[in-house]
């Protein structure tokens, strides 16, 4: 007996999101006492966000929780691809992927599962991250 399901990733957990960003090599900047931060854009203009990451340029990428409790990207997406080579769609996809990876690990740890990767590799031959979690009983 088995079942299959498909899940679309929604980014709702701030701590897991930060962990995913760190794993992707980004430096996180947060305000003091859970204050927001200013995301730098074109010609010194700024936008509010809950926290942000630095790029190697004068422009930042921010993260802001929306009314549904999901984090959205805040940034100057006309400029960023040109100056930093960061493309919004690619960035968003790789972030969702790493977030899902870290969330599965976190839930598995909490529920006492052991976590294994296919052949000790994170990616399988289709370029997917393949994780097996196991529980005895």
């Amino acid at each position, binding site marked *: *007996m*088995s079942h299959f399901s498909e*899940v*679309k990733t929604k980014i709702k957990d701030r701590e897991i999101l930060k962990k995913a960003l760190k794993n992707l090599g980004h430096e996180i900047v947060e305000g003091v006492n859970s204050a927001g931060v200013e995301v730098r854009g074109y010609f010194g203009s700024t936008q509010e966000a809950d926290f942000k990451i630095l790029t190697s340029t004068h422009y930042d990428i921010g993260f802001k929780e929306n009314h549904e409790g999901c984090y959205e990207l805040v940034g100057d997406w006309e400029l960023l691809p040109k100056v930093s080579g960061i493309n919004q769609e690619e960035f968003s996809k790789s972030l*969702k992927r790493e977030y899902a990876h870290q969330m*599965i690990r976190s839930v598995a740890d909490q529920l006492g599962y052991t976590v294994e990767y296919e052949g000790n590799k994170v990616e399988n031959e289709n370029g997917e991250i*393949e994780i097996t979690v196991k529980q005895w009983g």
Partner: protein
Amino acid sequence: MKSIVFKIDSDGEIAVEVRGAAGADCDTLTDPFEKSLGILSKKERKPEFFNQESESETAHAEGMGA
């Protein structure tokens, strides 16, 4: 032994497969993961399950990004 296999594709969508659990047990096993990860978009069960109850679930939602 019960196991759950997750495959995360390059878009961040996740395929979940349960092995070694029977009927409604499958749902109990995957629920905490599915709820934490996001929105369940598709669910398929082997015919054995439908001997007990008949049900299918679909939901759609927008993720983050473009």
